[in-house]
């Protein structure tokens, strides 16, 4: 762990804006069946952030390998590459005030181009790609920017209803600067007709929140004759500024 990336910024000690629990999915969403027995039934205990939530681990670029953000090559045999439509995914990690979040650790995972995950418990008949592992990671730059290269994942069926399919998606896990910002979400692809059919997408009530998880095709960011590009910005909770320095932090 290192704070290298954050060096020319003032340390942030404010509490985070309250989470909008109507905007996020509710815990109990019976059309997504697994949530039924895994959703807390009692009210959450609301708490202003303390130091335990305002602080969080920060990761340095020294943890990254050269191919960590290149899923086409990071599991492939030398000289080979993963099969599927080659894409670049790029964007920024912002906070709710629109400021870039530098030094954020992004970890991502996905199915291969056929919709198959490299996992013991995965039984879909689509074949594994011997050159595709399905995981990657990166750390945002000084402006909160990031980029990764991968193959577009395929949609896949999953046991929920008799014929439920996930739209093509990439899972993202994000560390900001405070543990209260911890977030896992999924990126969907512009124009995918499977998005509105998906029970997991439907755990989100507000169509605007679903749009915010849908990456736009960006032909201006493509690599000609190589990869198309999708732009996906991620927003983490913003912090209250410490307006009065003589007050205790976080309050």
């Amino acid at each position: 762990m290192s704070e290298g990336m954050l060096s020319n910024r003032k340390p942030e000690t404010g509490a985070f804006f309250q989470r909008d629990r109507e905007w996020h999915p509710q815990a109990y969403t019976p059309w997504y069946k697994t949530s039924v027995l895994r959703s807390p039934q009692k009210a959450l205990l609301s708490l202003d952030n303390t130091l335990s939530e305002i602080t969080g681990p920060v990761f340095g670029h020294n943890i990254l390998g050269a191919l960590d953000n290149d899923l086409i090559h990071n599991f492939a045999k030398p000289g080979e590459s993963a099969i599927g439509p080659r894409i670049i995914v790029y964007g920024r990690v912002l906070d709710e005030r629109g400021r870039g979040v530098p030094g954020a650790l992004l970890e991502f995972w996905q199915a291969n181009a056929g919709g198959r995950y490299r996992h013991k418990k995965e039984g879909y008949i689509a074949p594994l790609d011997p050159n595709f592992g399905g995981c990657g990671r990166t750390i945002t730059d000084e402006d909160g920017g990031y980029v990764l290269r991968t193959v577009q994942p395929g949609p896949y069926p999953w046991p929920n209803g008799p014929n439920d399919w996930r739209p093509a998606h990439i899972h993202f896990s994000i560390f900001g600067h405070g543990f209260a910002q911890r977030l896992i979400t999924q990126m969907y692809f512009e124009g995918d007709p499977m998005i509105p059919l998906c029970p997991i997408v439907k755990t989100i009530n507000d169509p605007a929140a679903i749009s915010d998880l849908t990456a736009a095709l960006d032909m201006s960011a493509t690599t000609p004759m190589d990869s198309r590009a999708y732009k996906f910005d991620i927003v983490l909770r913003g912090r209250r500024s410490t307006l009065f320095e003589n007050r205790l932090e976080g309050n």
Partner: protein
Amino acid sequence: MVQPLNRFKESASQTAGPYVHIGLTPNFSEINGVYPHDLGSSMVNDKTRGKRIAITGRVLDGTGTPLRDALVEIWQADADGLYNSPSEMRGAADPNFTGWGRCATDMVSGEFRFETVKPGRVPFNDGRLMAPHVTFWIVARGINIGLHTRMYFGDEDAANAEDPVLARIEHRVRLPTLVAEPVEGGYRFDIHLQGEKETVFFDI
């Protein structure tokens, strides 16, 4: 009309799904060779100060069945009550302690296990000391947004009795859901997602 506040909305959470381990603990999922080791698999080294403890437990669903596909992260202060974070303004935390751990629950038993140290006390926002505690964050298939809770220590009765966060729990019968049981070598902390023993989860 008034001036707009120009706030962005936080990206909506989506479940971590059944294959979260591919992304967050790939070596555990037998995807080897991409990263040298899984992040968060080691919190301490030979030089870490403080009392070594192991925290073990399970995450249980509404039928009492342990989740075998969950992922648990913890975040805690060092033995002196300092966080290893740029937002920690009170001093430098033990450089040999990360304060952060990540563990996939075992695919057979559902157990998680963290080798760590007992944290020191950290001040609440009004300056009172909180009791030693560890912050937990739980994600899994079927959990739509990561669950935050805290683990307190069963051998800290006096500190727990004056903890300002525990004091906020209106239904005192639920307080034991946040208190880990001392066992040989550490503490045991089971997290109940539902039912009579449902753990107190936080909106923080």
